[in-house]
């Protein structure tokens, strides 16, 4: 062991109580930082997973029609000059099969499914209820959503076997006191059609569960009187993170408005981001305060050990040695604090993940959702390191600058 480290350890042991307090502060700061990040990242990740399973990664919607106007350069000439214009959006996808065919040539796109959506009134149990029917091709839609795992009553097979089968959201079922096997009517304008409930689903997203009903494409075409086209095409990607790039490329190819999920859910994603940042800043203050405590303790040690420092200098210990002795003290507390903080963080995160809590609204969960990410641990360690380094450096510098002659002369007189 180096002499400087040995001296640092002995000096630390002499101030056990105050150093223990600094250590505890750093441990708690690191642990809380990781736990809060795990929690916010966990919820954010779960939200993203839910929303991708409900609304897909990319959606191709309205056709973009450019309305560029032009003037003939010369009445006799065939040249014309563009004089600007605007963009017109034509609702829906007129030829979804053509676009789906084109999409199969783009690597990275794993599945696509046409969807027709509209508005209707559900008549059931002597009540009327506004719903948003989604007409789907079950086979392809199952590849672009998590519908299969969202069924909580009934089955997709029952839905598949019945051309007039219906899947309703759990909030609709509870509101209208409906269950699997019940018969209901859907009305849109003059069209009235009977359906049988094949299944009840729950996404956890309140807005979806209380208004969306799934029926087969042919059935919705009849209900909405829309024999061709689709409202949008929902797309799945191999890598969800690349949705913006794919959306841009598809937009260029198909001249349809295309949006990735990041843009679509921007508001919620920003909420989570702000939450994560603000919790990181708040918890970092715990680490900062611990650092201040350590600074105070080290300054007291420097004052307390002034004569010892002078004696060490007279023996042949350099300014760098003295500085290192104090930096070591900070370093020892830092390492112990980070390691114990990481342990506490892991234990706390695990415990938190087991705590039951019923969340419904933007996703469905019956316990705290946590994300295990090594980056949280690294960032906590980095913040603690910066704080403790600064807290140690200033007292270390002060100790190194002591003039041994002055100190010893002052002590002897």
């Amino acid at each position, binding site marked *: 062991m180096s002499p400087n480290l040995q001296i640092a350890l002995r000096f630390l042991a002499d101030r056990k109580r105050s150093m223990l307090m600094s250590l505890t502060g750093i441990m708690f700061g690191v642990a809380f930082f990781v736990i809060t990040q795990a929690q916010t990242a966990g919820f954010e990740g779960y939200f993203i997973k839910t929303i991708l399973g409900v609304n897909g990664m990319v959606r191709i919607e309205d056709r973009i029609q450019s309305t560029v106007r032009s003037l003939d350069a010369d009445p006799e000439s065939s040249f014309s000059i563009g004089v600007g214009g605007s963009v017109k959006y034509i609702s829906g996808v007129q030829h979804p099969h053509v676009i789906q065919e084109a999409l199969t040539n783009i690597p990275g796109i794993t599945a696509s499914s046409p969807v027709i959506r509209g508005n209707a009134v559900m008549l059931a149990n002597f009540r009327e209820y506004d719903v948003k029917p989604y007409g789907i091709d079950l086979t392809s839609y199952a590849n672009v959503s998590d519908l299969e795992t969202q069924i909580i009553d009934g089955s997709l097979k029952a839905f598949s076997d019945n051309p007039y089968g219906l899947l309703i959201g759990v909030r609709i079922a509870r509101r209208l006191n409906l269950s699997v096997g019940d018969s209901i009517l859907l009305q849109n304008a003059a069209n009235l059609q009977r359906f049988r409930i094949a299944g009840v689903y729950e996404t956890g997203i309140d807005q979806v569960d209380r208004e969306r009903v799934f029926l087969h494409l042919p059935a919705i075409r009849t209900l909405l009187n829309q024999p061709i086209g689709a409202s949008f095409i929902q797309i799945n990607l191999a890598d969800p993170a690349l949705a913006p790039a794919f959306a841009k490329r598809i937009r260029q190819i198909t001249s349809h408005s295309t949006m990735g999920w990041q843009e679509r859910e921007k508001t919620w994603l920003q909420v989570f981001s702000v939450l994560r940042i603000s919790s990181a800043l708040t918890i970092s203050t715990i680490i900062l305060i611990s650092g201040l405590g350590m600074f105070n303790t080290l300054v007291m040690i420097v004052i307390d050990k002034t004569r010892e420092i002078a004696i060490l200098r007279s023996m042949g*210990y350099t300014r760098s040695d003295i500085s290192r002795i104090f930096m070591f003290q900070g370093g020892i507390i830092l390492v112990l604090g980070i390691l114990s903080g990481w342990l506490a963080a892991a234990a706390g995160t695990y415990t938190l993940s087991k705590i039951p809590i019923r969340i419904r609204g933007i996703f469905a969960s019956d316990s705290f959702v946590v994300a295990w990410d090594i980056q949280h641990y690294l960032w906590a360690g980095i913040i603690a390191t910066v704080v403790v380094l600064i807290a140690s450096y200033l007292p270390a510098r002060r100790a190194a600058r002591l003039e041994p002659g002055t100190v010893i002369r002052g002590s*002897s007189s």
Partner: protein
Amino acid sequence: MPVLTCDNLQRFLGSAENRVQALRGVSLSIEPGRTYAIAGHSGSGKSTLLYLLGLLDLPDKGSIHVRGQDTRGLSDEQRTALRNEHMGFVFQFHFLLKEFSALENVMLPMRKLARLSEADMRAKAADLLDRVGLADKRNRLGNHLSGGEQQRVAIARALANDPALILADEPTGNLDHANADRVFDLLGEIAHTRGQALLMVSHNPELAGRCDQVFRMQDGLLLDPS
């Protein structure tokens, strides 16, 4: 070769109206195996001279040579290294590190020099403590020893790296008569038998008189330079 020489040392202390010339041009030579005392009234510049010769302070003018090496222009690190290798200090207050045992205190300078193995350092420290009569107290913490015992540990520590020069500032000033005699005899014996030089500041004329040579100081000058 002299262990240490200095030529025309001058030192000012304080600043502005409080600036005083503590040394006005001191020259001397320290030979190995001899004991020297610096005597004089309070304020004559004794401790200032000692700290300059011990490279704990820098002169405003003049030169100091340690074993033939001119210390002018040396960096703080280089002067510190010279202290570590060639000098040992004994102060009025022993200044032991209380977190360390007697043995570990003696080993501190050796650890810095880093020329011996751990086992050799321990053996040498134990031997030094034996020489100063503290063989059975080597594992006691520094602050669990009596005043005289602590001063003897400080002497052993000063000898740890076999320095050419031992500098002592009132080494017996805080001890009773019996212990003071014992400590002085020990220092003198070590200097004569091990060929090391001892330079001691002392208010005690009787102890000063028992040294091989006495430098008497007054108002920053040696009265009878030799």
